[in-house]
Structure formats: C-alpha cells, structure tokens
C-alpha cells in the first residue's frame, strides 16, 4: 500500500508527508547534535528565535538543517492585526527562509500587536466576515512577499465575541480558501476551545479542506480553574491523541509535530511522544518508515 492510497485525501503539493517532527528548542541542542536528530523526522524552528545576526543559535540551526527537513513557525506575522504588516520583519523572515530553505512556513490566525505595541500573545479574532476579508488580504500580501503559500494555524482562545458569524472551523476554512493558503491544524487548540467554549473539535476538523492541511500540531495544555490554557507544558492529553487518531484516519498521513514550550522534558520523553504519533499514522496508513524527504 502506498502513501495516499486507501482513500487518503489529497495533500497540498508543497507539503509532502515529512513524518513526525519535534519543535527545536535550545534545551535539546546537545542531544539533537549528539544523536544526529534520531527520533525526529523533521524539525520546526520558531522563526523569531533565529531573526538574529549570528552566534550559536544560527550555527545550531544550520547543523539541524543538515540532519533533517526544517519548517519555520512564527508568532509575529500578525496576520489578524490592524497595524500595517511589518515590512522589516517580513524582509528578515524572507532572508531566514532563503538561508535555511524550510519545507514551508507557518504562523497563527490571530493578532499580536496594536498601535505599535507588541503583546506577544496569540490574541483572538471575532469570527466574522469582516475578519475573514481582513486576514485573507494580509495572508495574500505575505504570500506575495515570500513568493510561496504559507500555512495558518488555529489558536486556543479564552473569550468569544458577541456577534460571531462563523464557527471556528468555518472561520479557518473561509480564510484559507479566500487567501489560498495552507492550514496548520493544531488539534490541541481545537480540543482546548472545545473545552473552553463548548465547541465540537471533530466538527472543526471536518470543516477544513484536507487539501490545504500542511501539518498537524500536538501539544499539552494546563488547567487554570475551569479553563484549559495552551501552555505547551504538559504531555499530549489522551483526548487529543484520540482526536488525532480520528483525524489521521480521515485525512491520511499528515506531517505532525510535537510541541513543548515550557517545562520542557528531556529529549527522550519528547521522542517517545513523537514515536506514539508515528505509530498512529503508520498503523492507519502505509508510509515509508521515518521518511525524510528533503
């Protein structure tokens, strides 16, 4: 059985299945270099951490790029903001992509700055037609500047706006369609929002066009009273593993990434989570073991 057989849905041409990757974090640099990246089929680097002039982080990123495919994941494109797109940031991001040749780039469906002040958070957008038009136009401008399609990621949220016109899945689907961009499907974020707002995570996944899904994110939230917070400081929860199995069964093999950003565990534990994701994909679909497309 070959990849994409048995009814797997169409994949985006620029986002082939890379396997299961791990978010590149400085804590793991020594282990990654020592084991030549074994355990990760690809790496995802936070773009902003490498928008610097030189030094160890860029040297390590170059070494990692030699070990496995790389994708760049940003937090400051500010696709939903009302401030103008940051031309300087875009220029630096384009230069970083030119230097390290990532398989693709992604950022979040949110806003992070207003009036020149950066809040450094993934802030929520009202799910309205106005937001769809606004964000899609900015995504198109970014794609034109970078000369390639990007993937946009659904975020966890803690508030909902009166007057929302679309469900979260419909909102993400509409923007990706109008912008002609890819989707980074964060299943933990859909799970968190299902908990926080009473959404249906499976319905949100079903609303998306599979041919636009570049990648899946898996991470673990923390609890704050009655709410779940997207802190990436816990293991992937059982409910999210179950959601992942259902999504993979429907979508086919999708490049999947394990994300930790705080209380980052030893490399071996992250590798074990990646192995579990790989097992789920390979149990459902026949794919080249530890495929490393370059």
């Amino acid at each position, binding site marked *: 059985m070959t990849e994409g057989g048995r009814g797997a849905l169409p994949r985006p041409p620029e986002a082939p299945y890379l396997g299961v990757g791990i978010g590149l974090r400085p804590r793991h640099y020594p282990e990654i270099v020592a084991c030549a990246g074994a355990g990760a089929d690809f790496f995802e680097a936070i773009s902003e951490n490498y928008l610097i002039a030189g030094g160890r982080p860029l040297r390590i990123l170059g070494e990692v790029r030699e070990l496995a495919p790389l994708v760049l994941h940003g937090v400051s494109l500010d696709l939903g903001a*009302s401030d103008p797109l940051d031309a300087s*940031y875009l220029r630096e991001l384009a230069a970083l992509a030119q230097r390290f040749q990532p398989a693709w780039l992604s950022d979040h469906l949110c806003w992070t700055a207003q*009036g020149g002040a950066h*809040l450094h958070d993934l802030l929520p957008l009202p799910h309205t037609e*106005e937001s769809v038009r606004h964000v899609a136009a900015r995504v198109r401008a970014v794609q034109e500047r970078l000369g390639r399609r990007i993937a946009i990621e659904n975020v966890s949220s803690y508030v909902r706006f009166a007057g929302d016109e679309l469900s979260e899945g419909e909102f993400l689907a509409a923007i990706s369609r109008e912008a002609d961009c890819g989707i980074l499907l964060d299943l933990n974020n859909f799970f968190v929002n299902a908990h926080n707002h009473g959404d249906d995570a499976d319905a949100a996944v079903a609303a998306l066009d599979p041919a636009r899904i570049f990648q899946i994110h898996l991470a673990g939230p923390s609890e704050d009273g009655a709410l779940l917070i997207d802190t990436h400081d816990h293991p992937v929860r059982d409910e999210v593993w179950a959601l992942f199995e259902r999504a993979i069964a429907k979508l086919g093999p999708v490049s999947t990434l394990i994300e930790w950003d705080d209380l980052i565990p030893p490399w071996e534990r992250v590798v074990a989570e990646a192995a579990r994701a790989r097992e789920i994909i390979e149990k459902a679909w026949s794919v080249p073991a530890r495929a490393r497309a370059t």
Partner: protein
Amino acid sequence: MSTPLVSRQQEFSAWVMAREAPATTLGLLGDARASSETRLGVYRNAYAGRIIATLRDDYPALRSALGAAPFDALAADYLHAHPSQHPSLRYAGARLPAFLAEHEAVRSVRASAPWAADLAHLELAVTDAFDAADAQALSRADLTALPPQHWDALALALMPGAQLPTFAWPVRALRAAHDAEQPLAFDALAPASERVLVWRRDERVLHRECSAEEHALLAHVARGVRFGALCALAAEARGEVAGAAFAASLLARWVEDEVLVTCS
C-alpha cells in the same frame, strides 16, 4: 480607518495592557464555565507574565541581586512605561538599563541599589554580544603573514557586538558571581569606576576590565583605526618608542583574545 475590528483590537489591547483591570468587559461573552472577567484575565496574566519572564532570563544577575519580588515589581513598572516595540521578545528588555538610570518611577530602586542600572547595562551588553553577527577573528597567522611595510596600514576593527561600557560600580563581579553560582556580595559593593570590554569568543560572551588607556585605545578601534595611527595615539602618553611597544603588546593580547576581526 476605524472599523469594528480596529476598534475591538484597540479596546482589547488597552484592557490587557492597563496597569489596573478596567471595569468594562468589552462586550465579550462569559458563560457557566467562566465569566468574561475570568476569561479576559487569562490574557492580562499572560501578557505581563510572558514579558516579565523574558526579563528574568535577560537580567539574571540583576534579579538575583535585587531579589525575585523586587525584580518582578521593577519589571512590571518597566513594562508599563515601555511596552514592547519589536516583534521578537528578544528586544523587550532593551530599554531597562536606561529606565533604571533615568525613570522617576524607579527612584527608590536607584536609592537602594545604585549599581542596578550599571548591572543591567552589562547584562544587556552580554545579550547583545551573544547573537551579534559572526566574523572571522584576526589571527596570529594573519599578522605573521603581513609584510613589515604593511603594518602601519593594518586596519583594526572590533568583533561585531563588542562593547566598551564604563561603569560607576564594579558590577562585573556581580555577574561573574552569578554565572559561577556564587553568592552575590552586593551589600559590600562600593562605587569604583570600571572600564569594561564585552565580546564573544567561541560562542561564549566574555567580559574583562581594561585600564583607562587600553579602553580609550579600544574606543578608537571600535570606530576603525589603522595600527600606525594606534601607535601614534599610544605615543601621546608614552612617547614614540614606548607607545609603539605598548600598542604592539595590546594588539598581541587582542589577537589572542579574538577581540579583533580581519579587515580587507
């Protein structure tokens, strides 16, 4: 142009960044699981928490010296006065040394910890050197290969990110003690002028004290100077022969320390 989306983001960001939580909840929805105040509070806490955590990482010795709670209070004052202006958190704390040195809101910190601005300045210099541009260091082999008649014209320049701060307090010892996981003896600190060179070598940021004479000559190197001119500058205080010998000894040390870059 003001649209519903722009207005909402203006109100939302003002609410999140305000020192005290405003009474309004921006027309956001609460439910049985959590009120709109609780839900908005997640963003308020994350905003301050994330940036203050970054400042803790960027100014570790200052935090140790001031204490965790006073440092966090300082960071909150700073964040209120200087919201982040850059897409990367890396630069969120760049104005903390000037804030500590000048801002009215932290006059009491200056009174109780008059060395704090200098220590912050040193720690910012360390951060800036850490990810400064890469460059090839001028080596002993480069000098050996240089014909004697070309020495005067040898162009000298500092490594990218190298800095030459002057402090009124001997704060290098505080940062060095922190890096060595030793107790910080800041209670016994007495004012003493300290001229410092901060630079990166082999991916490690180093700092050492310089004499006033070396520091002044390094300042010329920072602006770009040829070795012949450096000798002439050294000769002003020491005379021609001793000045040239002194400049040569400094050059040897700087090359050994990989403080200089090769210039075409």
